């Protein structure tokens, strides 16, 4: 229980201000979905919808004319498509990390941000899934990559890392979606109970699956949530590891590297937290939720970014060291070329954004300044996009035979597909914060300073906090 009880001796303070109580939480979070949307929401939604349109047009053009609408070529057969894919998948990592890993580690500060970041994960994975889908030459036979029984008696090639990707990403998406939905059920019931109109009552009611907040419901809920948290935790590590296998198992210098799985996972968590941070800062501003998403939360996030940013920086330098230490001339050339070749600007953008900028978070003043952290979160996202661009494009553009070396230049359709995916993401996200409780109300209630359980019946459910929720639910009832 020490996680809820701040230890004053080491300078810990409560996660939320003292005036926040259970009713306040319900009101603050629910009102966002009940009152007309503020102008800020309409602005974001309108802009997002516009870019979603751009995505539609770009993808339509791409399907009609072929992959040649992009700038991809030989030797750079993958470019922005897979860069965007890995970038989005990386962003989609924070959600599960916050929900599952921090849940298992009893990090109560996650309660304000977990719903939010889980939603972000799902939308980011949707955006990520877009790219492997549209980047194939013959999209109409994409289903051949799935192990479906068919009249050709053909299985997919289980040796291919792309197939592992299919499994890893689809598993991740399914589990994340379930996890998110299960976690939503008690809050959906709250919205249902507060609903004034029949439509709201019926629609939230349908998705609340008849939740009544009974002790048995809570017991089942806690079980399910814990099992899903357990299932998701290895996925946090596996998804990006598998994505990194696309590169690590190849024979290409600059790709064929054993450091990739941990390096990719660290980078993914890094970019995911940056994106959560960006979104949190915007939403707490637009919806005035500063009491629930406090500076303390943001500071925690920034600390994680500092750690993962440093891990990524270590990986960058270790790549260089190994390239030299291996004595492999092709490997050496790739890394020298990254830093000094025609794409030097991409490499140094990456280093500046990913390694140098998070180091500012060592200073408490900067770590707790909203404008600074907002700027850095954006910068990190740019940097992480460049990291994938550097890995993919600069490795491919100069490989073994100098005769086949080439350069990549994006087309309008490339730009449309990328900005369009941001449109898709923000459209989904805007709809989410408008219609669903963006903060896990019941979980925050469990982490309130006055949520100290007055009775303990944890013996039946073990150590995973069921008692807290039980208490809150009892209070509400």
């Amino acid at each position, binding site marked *: 229980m020490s996680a809820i009880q701040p230890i004053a001796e080491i300078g810990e303070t409560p996660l939320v201000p003292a005036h926040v109580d259970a009713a306040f939480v319900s009101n603050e979070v629910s009102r966002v979905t009940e009152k007309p949307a503020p102008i800020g929401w309409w602005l974001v939604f309108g802009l997002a919808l516009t870019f979603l349109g751009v995505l539609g047009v770009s993808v339509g053009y791409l399907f009609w*004319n*072929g*992959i*040649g609408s992009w*700038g*991809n*070529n*030989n*030797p*750079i*057969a*993958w470019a922005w498509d897979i860069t965007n894919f890995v970038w989005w998948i990386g962003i989609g990592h924070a959600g599960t990390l916050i929900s599952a890993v921090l849940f298992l580690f009893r990090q109560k500060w996650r309660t304000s941000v977990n719903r939010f970041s889980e939603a972000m994960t799902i939308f980011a994975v949707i955006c990520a899934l877009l790219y*492997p889908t549209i*980047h*194939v*030459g*013959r*999209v109409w*036979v*994409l289903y*051949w*990559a799935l192990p479906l029984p068919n009249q050709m008696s*053909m*299985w*997919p*090639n289980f*040796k*291919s*890392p*792309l*197939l592992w990707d*299919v499994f890893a990403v689809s598993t991740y998406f399914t589990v994340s979606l379930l996890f998110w939905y299960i976690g939503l059920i008690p809050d959906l019931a709250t919205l249902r109970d507060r609903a004034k109109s029949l439509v709201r009552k019926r629609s939230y009611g349908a998705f609340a699956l008849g939740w009544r907040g009974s002790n048995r419901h809570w017991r089942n809920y806690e079980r399910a949530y814990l099992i899903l948290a357990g299932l998701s935790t290895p996925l946090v590590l596996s998804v990006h590891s598998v994505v990194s296998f*696309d590169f690590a*198992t*190849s*024979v*290409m210098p600059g790709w064929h590297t054993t450091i990739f799985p941990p390096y990719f996972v660290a980078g993914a968590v890094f970019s995911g937290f940056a994106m959560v941070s960006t979104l949190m800062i915007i939403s707490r501003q637009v919806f005035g939720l500063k009491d629930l998403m406090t500076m303390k939360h943001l500071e925690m996030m920034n600390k994680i970014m500092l750690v993962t940013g440093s891990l990524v920086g270590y990986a960058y330098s270790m790549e260089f060291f190994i390239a030299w230490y291996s004595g492999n*001339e*092709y490997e050496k*050339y790739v890394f020298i070329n990254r830093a000094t070749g025609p794409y030097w600007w991409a490499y140094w953008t990456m280093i500046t954004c990913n390694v140098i900028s998070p180091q500012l978070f060592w200073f408490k003043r900067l770590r707790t300044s909203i404008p600074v952290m907002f700027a850095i979160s954006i910068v990190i996202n740019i940097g992480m996009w460049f990291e994938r661009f550097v890995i993919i494009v600069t490795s*491919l553009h*100069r*490989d*073994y*035979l*100098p*005769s*086949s*070396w*080439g*350069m990549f230049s994006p087309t309008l359709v490339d730009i449309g597909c990328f900005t369009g995916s941001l449109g898709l993401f923000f459209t989904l996200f805007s709809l989410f914060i408008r219609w669903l409780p963006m903060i896990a109300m019941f979980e925050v209630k469990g982490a309130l300073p006055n949520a100290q359980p007055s009775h303990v019946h944890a013996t039946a459910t073990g150590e995973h906090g069921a008692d807290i929720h039980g208490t809150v639910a009892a209070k509400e009832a």
Partner: protein
Amino acid sequence: MKFADALKKVPTSIHFSSYVDETASLCTWQVPRAHELESWGDAQSLTGVYSVQQPLIAPLWGGRSDIEVLGKLAGLPNWRGYDIVQATVDERGIRGEIAWRQLLNKGVAPSTFGTVTAGLAARDADVANALKQLGEPAPLGDSFEAAFIADPKLFDGRFANNQWLLEMPDPMTRITWDNAAMLAPSTAKELGVKNGDIIRLSKGDASIDIVAWMQPGVAARSVILPLGWGRTLAGSNGNKKGFDVYPLRSSASPHYLAGVKLEKLDVRRYPISQTQEHDVMEGRPIAIEATLDEYKDKPNFPEFESPDPAYGPLWKTQDYSQGNQWGMLIDLNTCTGCSTCVIACQAENNVPVVGKDQVARGREMHWLRIDRYYVGESEDEPDVAFQPIACQHCEEAPCENVCPVAATSHSPEGLNDIAYNRCIGTRYCMNNCPYKVRRFNFLNFNQEVPETRQMGMNPNVTVRFRGVVEKCTYCVQRIQMAKIKAKTQGRRELREGEVVVACQQACSTNSIVFGDLNNPKSAISRRYRADRSYGLLSEIGTRPRTRFLGKIRNPNPEMKTVKA
């Protein structure tokens, strides 16, 4: 010479040609000429061998052959090509249906008809005299010397409408779809001219504007001008491609023109499409070569630079000891970089032409390419190494493992096959190919193929749709045809030389050897593991089936540019 102006003054002019070209547009009449493959004809060699030429197809566009037009002009009653040839055959005493059919079948007559001894004496004295008349060249001073060369692809311009040739990279500059004025890099630097700048070359009234290109090996203050480009009525493919350099050339000085003024024009840089943009090997063991002395000292020199990996793969390797095992051996010693094999491959395998813009984007489709590297220390006078590269048919092919749908996989005969119909186009195989030989149909390059061009396609090879990957198949269709033929003849085994792949067939120097590695008597198995033999990038562990024979140079020690 102002031929065009002179021609306009002729009241009746008749142009007899297969093409409506620049000359035709100035004539009053155009007579359509049948192609050689549409015409009857005959010929007799100097040694008296008589041969008959039989058309493959009736004239597609109603053309008339040369002899038919001559026959008409001469007022022959039986002016048809067939009749004229029949008459000549009759004169040769070949009579009757059977004899005629035998003649057509064999192509040559059984007996000879008297040798012709034309005066073919060497004219050494004339040559010496002509050389003397040239005298000492006048000093160039500030001016430049233009040298006109027959274009390696279009010759004098007669092939200017041929897409294959237009897209074929120039053997030396690697430029496609254009010609360029080639300058020595040192001269270009001196003038402040960069690749793609437009320069004006003028002498007297004549002047041309042409794109400049730095070409190592060109003499200082010399401008090389390939002929045959910039035509206006070559046809839909060849019109306005490249730059016409004929205005500078006169019959008085058809090969060289001294005293040419060169100025750089202040206009937008002209885009040039190359298939190879990096010219040196960066010290990598790619086109491996040695001097004769080095070879004598270490006959297996390539092995030291491109060794097979010390350890094999972790998994059980396929057994290649049975059946036909196809392999290719390319001798870098004899390859001249002429690129005939590139076109042969293109014709055989229905490889599409993609156009200048797509080549600039790096999307040329050639299954076989010739890599050209400059070697040696000097930038101005380098040596050149050519290396034909197609799919290496790796026994441990990196492309095969990564395909999610198993569209590319190995045949028991050691071919790296692709099932186009299975390919979904992830392009992962292209990324993982160390030789970058796999080609992707980025767009539908076969969208509008006119009927006549469809007739020119190889019916044994699939035309690929957009979105699939393709590459060299070792002419698998020819292998299959040979097997079918052997089977119909009741043979189990293929004979040596029965399978000839397109590039091998076209190579004028026999640099490409193809055959069955399991046949100890085959030409390839005798040389496959010769001392000069090596597998390209074999240290990655790909075990390529195509191997190369390292190049040996025997430099004249008195020439300064050779590699020490």
